[in-house]
């Protein structure tokens, strides 16, 4: 029998001070400053903002240091911090067409208005480790090309002219965008709610699911219509001002995936679309999100649901890495009582099993005991 106990306060306290020590590491090595992380580990900061679902560069950098570089722990910290703040409201929808573009590529159109702008990309690098970087070499300023500012319409607007691509996703006129931070998840869910969940979803999980669609599990023939990264202005309607309050700019990544679709009972042959929109420079995540968004539209488009990536409840219920890590990691917390009960149960089952298998032996034992 198990008797309730308590204890561990001193052990926990000491473990946390040991954690603080190990986090700081060798004191002869200079401590990291948050601005160093914001500037030099920028994509890690962006991932923490996007999956932590909070746009704040310094807080994300602090979370990364505090978590010793454990990204999911950092995301967890940011999510927890969010709950301490009041909510001022919902912004007006951002206009990605008016973005100050830092990167913009299309795999479907070579010559598109505004052109292909590679920006600060890892693409076409040789993936060779750079010893000069290790030695702390100076980095030259980037080249500039003076040009007239050019309008950069979204590629979807160009394709739309031919009528061969579905329009941007519409919802019924009186539809109020759902908010998973206010209401519990319910299935089936509308596309707007799915997109909110996907935007904060785990990059690795969505990447694997997106990859699975490419490998044939719910194949949907994707092309990158466009990826654009850059800053957009944010505005908030407030009662005290006669116009929307300008809040400043945020960097986002948008991916327009275009998918060939041979048609179904519900929709004619055309190009369908998947959409990704993520905080910061998070191209892989935006692409994975767009692949998953498209796969999850299976029932809307009259496709058979045959693969994991199309299963809304499976994808959305398991895409949140804070929930996932909470449930997986809780297993290491004391389960002494549960286990004691299970142990007792398994002992009894084993005894019954032995008795069935070898009745004579048990009888012998019983006789001997008597």
């Amino acid at each position, binding site marked *: 029998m198990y008797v309730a106990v308590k204890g561990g306060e001193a052990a926990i306290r000491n473990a946390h001070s040991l954690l603080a020590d190990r986090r700081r590491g060798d004191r002869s090595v200079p401590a990291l400053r948050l601005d160093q992380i914001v500037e030099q580990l920028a994509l890690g900061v962006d991932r923490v903002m996007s999956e932590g679902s909070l746009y704040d560069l310094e*807080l994300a950098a602090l979370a990364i240091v505090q978590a010793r570089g454990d990204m999911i722990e950092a995301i967890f910290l940011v999510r927890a911090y969010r709950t301490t703040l*009041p909510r001022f409201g919902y912004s007006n*929808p951002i206009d990605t067409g008016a973005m100050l573009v830092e990167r913009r590529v299309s795999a479907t159109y070579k010559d598109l208005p505004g052109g292909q702008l590679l920006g600060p990309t890892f693409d076409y690098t040789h993936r060779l480790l750079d010893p000069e970087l290790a030695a702390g070499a100076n980095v030259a300023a980037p080249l500039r*090309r003076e040009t007239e500012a050019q309008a950069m319409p979204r590629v979807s607007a160009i394709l739309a002219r031919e009528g061969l691509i579905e329009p941007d996703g519409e919802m019924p006129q009186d*539809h109020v965008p759902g908010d998973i931070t206010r209401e519990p998840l319910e299935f089936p869910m509308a596309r707007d709610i799915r997109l909110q969940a996907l935007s904060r979803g785990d990059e690795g999980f969505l990447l694997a699911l997106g990859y699975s669609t490419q490998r044939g599990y719910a194949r949907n023939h994707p092309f990158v219509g466009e990826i654009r990264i850059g800053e957009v202005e944010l505005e908030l309607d407030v009662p005290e001002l006669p116009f929307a309050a300008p809040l400043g700019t945020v960097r986002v990544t948008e991916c327009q995936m275009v998918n060939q679709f041979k048609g179904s009972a519900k929709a004619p042959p055309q190009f369908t679309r998947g959409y990704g929109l993520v905080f910061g420079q998070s191209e892989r995540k935006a692409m994975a999100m767009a692949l998953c968004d498209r796969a999850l539209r299976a029932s809307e488009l009259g496709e058979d649901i045959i693969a994991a990536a199309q299963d809304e409840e499976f994808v959305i219920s398991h895409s949140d890495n804070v929930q996932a890590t909470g449930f997986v990691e809780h297993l290491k917390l004391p389960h002494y009582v549960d286990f004691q009960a299970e142990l007792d149960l398994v002992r009894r089952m084993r005894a019954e099993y032995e008795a069935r298998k070898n009745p004579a032996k048990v009888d012998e034992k019983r006789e001997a005991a008597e």
Partner: protein
Amino acid sequence: MRGQEARDQAERKAAMATLAQSSGDDIVRLWNEAGLPSQAELLRGPETGLVTLRGRIGGGGAPFNVGEATVTRATVRLPSGQVGHCYALGRDKQKAKLAAIADALWQDPARRTEVETRLIGPLRSALATAQEKRRAETAATKVDFFTMVRGED
């Protein structure tokens, strides 16, 4: 709305946008250089909260919630009575307070030119320079396609 009123609102909004996009350090530096008055009664804040950022499905479709952003706001009243507001991304409370005072001063016809020339103007040109630099750096990564000539001769 009359034309003048609409123009005023557009200019006020543009000034607020410039303040929201500028760093707190730049605002403080220019504020001190210009010797702008900073006495004002705080009516609200400065306080930090969240704004949920919305996007549109497919870029131009129905709105959906993307995630939240930290925003700091402040509301002030000047001794002369003007009430100013600030909403700005981030958690810089001093910036929010100064930007709210700047908004209030901007509404005072006797002060507007001073605020525009000593504070908003320099901030705006610094932002424009930074934006132009970014645009030019990005433009240098633009792909120029060349048609390949078949090498038969």
